[in-house]
């Protein structure tokens, strides 16, 4: 009886979430994968099992290649941009400046805003109009006499997705800063002191002591940013809508499901997004599990 008393309340407490997650996350995931393996290409037919056919034929579509390409460019620029900027901010604050709390709040604040709101503002900032038609950043450059900096932003066919990553970097680098700042603070002062006693320069302290100890933080940040990036949807739609020039898999999925009314194709794209995200998340889970098992 006492034993039951010990575990039953806890179990009751978590049961609703276990059930909800089982149905609404894993159940839906399974249902999605099953749908992706049928030929249900309109909303009426039942669809029969076709195996991995949809997964293969998707690659014949030019648009899919473009959207994957865009997602990769976006991910690379966004993840490295946010990591670098976040690290730099944390590095600058680590030395303990006046009013650190204020700065922390200021840098962290963008994360409190939704991507949609960010997108609406940056849509205006990154308007591609130039010279007399310029608004936003182009207008700023124009009035400062820095005309050569005026640019097409996200409408540039080659570098548009890199421009699209700028608002995302703006939004997430404060969060990365917070992670790194915690990491920096977690490095015991004794270690640094010991290194200095051994004759290390301040640079060498960072190079050989602090940076290696930041590796776990970097990995967490990489994973958090990576999975946000691969499934990015709201930011893109808020900035440019559903256009090929900024197409990413998640937007393509919306178009396939709600505009072309092709559930199987939408489910296939969704499955690819889940797989891509799991490439990031699974190694992380394995890694954390292992670390927790260690005494």
């Amino acid at each position, binding site marked *: 009886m006492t034993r039951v*008393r010990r575990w*039953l*309340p*806890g179990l*009751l*407490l978590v*049961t*609703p*979430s276990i059930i*909800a997650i089982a149905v609404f996350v894993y159940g839906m995931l399974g249902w999605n994968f099953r749908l992706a393996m049928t030929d249900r290409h*309109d*909303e*009426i037919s039942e669809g029969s099992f076709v195996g991995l056919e949809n997964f293969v034929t998707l690659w014949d579509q*030019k*648009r899919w290649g*473009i959207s994957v390409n865009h997602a990769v460019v976006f991910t690379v620029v966004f993840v490295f941009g946010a990591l670098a900027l976040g690290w730099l901010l944390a590095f600058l604050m680590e030395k303990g400046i006046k009013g650190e709390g204020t700065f922390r709040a200021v840098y962290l604040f963008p994360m409190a805003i939704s991507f949609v709101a960010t997108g609406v503002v940056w*849509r205006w900032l990154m*308007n*591609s*109009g*130039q010279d*007399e*038609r310029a608004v936003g950043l182009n207008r700023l450059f124009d009035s400062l006499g820095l005309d050569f900096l005026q640019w*097409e932003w996200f*409408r540039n*066919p080659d570098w548009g997705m890199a421009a699209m990553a700028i608002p995302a970097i703006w939004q997430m680098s404060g969060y990365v800063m917070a992670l790194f700042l915690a990491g920096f603070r977690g490095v015991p002062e004794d270690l640094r002191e010991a290194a200095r006693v051994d004759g290390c320069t301040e640079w060498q302290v960072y190079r050989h002591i602090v940076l290696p100890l930041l590796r776990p933080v970097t990995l967490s940040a990489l994973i958090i940013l990576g999975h946000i990036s691969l499934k990015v949807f709201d930011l893109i739609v808020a900035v*440019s*809508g*559903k*256009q*090929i*020039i900024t*197409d990413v898999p998640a937007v393509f999925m*919306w*178009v396939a499901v*709600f*505009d*072309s*009314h*092709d559930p199987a194709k939408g489910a296939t794209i969704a499955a690819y997004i889940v797989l891509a995200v799991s490439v990031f998340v699974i190694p992380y889970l394995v890694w954390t599990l292992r670390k927790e098992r260690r005494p």
Partner: protein
Amino acid sequence: MRRRWMAAVAVTVAGLLTLTACGDGGGAAQSPQADGKKKVEVFSWWTGPGEADGLKAMKEIFEKQNPGLTFFDAAVAGGSGDKARALLATKLQADTPPDTFQGHAGAELQGYIKAGDLEPVNSLYDELKLKDVFPQQLIDQISVQGQIYSVPVNIHRSNVMWFNPAVLKEAGVTEVPATIETFVAALEKVKKTGKVPLSIGSEWTMVHLLESVLLGSLGTDAYNKLWTAGSDWSGPAMTKALNDFKTILSYAGDPADDWQPAAKQVADGQAAFTIMGDWAYGYFHNPPDGGLGKKSKTDFDWAPSPGTGGTFMWLSDSFTLPKGAPNRDGALAWLKVAASKEGQDAFNPKKGSIPARKDADTSLYTDYLADALKDWGSNKLAGSIQHGVVVNDAWRVAINEAVGLFHTDKDVAALQASLAEAAKNSGQ
């Protein structure tokens, strides 16, 4: 110990209650109102200035004529109805349709028809003798195997060329271009002045331009044939039309965010032309706070898009009768108001469109709308691509995709191939 037990149970129950509450959150909103009047849920995407006012005017007529019914506005914001249609799709799949919903008349409704979501309204057409008051060509173009599934409440024109007379004068263009050749010549002249010859917006506005160029280059009969079994997407006439499209697009400025900023470039004298549907008239003409407050004929002017004089490329907002509507009688009452002369004349002057009925009160429609009403009664008709008249959703998406790819690679042969492919796969 006991207290912890109680707390755990309380939290669990609260959790379960929240879950169930999520489950039928939508149902709660639909429950009948306490005052005994039956509710009619009208689903649309009319929330902007003008259109929402028009809807309100129809609502007043509806509630006056049907004292036992109340109008429930289930409008979902978003200009082109993207979000509204996504929500509608989920509602229809869950078999909880609104009593009536807005859709573009024509092939866009085909998905709903095939899925068995709509009831035909032929009996309503017979009862109200609507076949006598709507143009025959309109009835033909919205019929699916002899059945009609919607009641058009308004008509918009898609093939309108808007231009800035002052910019044309400055460039030495004396005559409004009426053919594609003269249009290209005019674009060239404007280009020399340093102004933007043709302003465009986001990707869909290029498809909008394409439909006008196709109509102008192919001619009305060949254009209308594209949507039938005898379509010819691979022939030389189509190649020429697509080359015209490429030429015209080469004079376009940087794409603006959407059609409004593109139209504003024309109103502000930065650009000479833009090709956009006649909803642009309201934007040009309405007082600031929704419009630009410009004077028609002096600040901006209009003509049929090049090569399409004498043809009215139309699109229409219409209301439907979903199967299993909770309040079918209420929905029918709404459709009657939407079809009536009184309802259409209340709605359209506010929304900035013309009534689909031929017997409308012409004194209500002035300036551009008077022009449009005159043309609607006398011109040949063609249906819009981008606004869902001639192609179903999947086909429209495929065309949009082809044009989006074309915008980056400018490859006419690839565009023609993918358009032909899209026509073949359309299942229409």
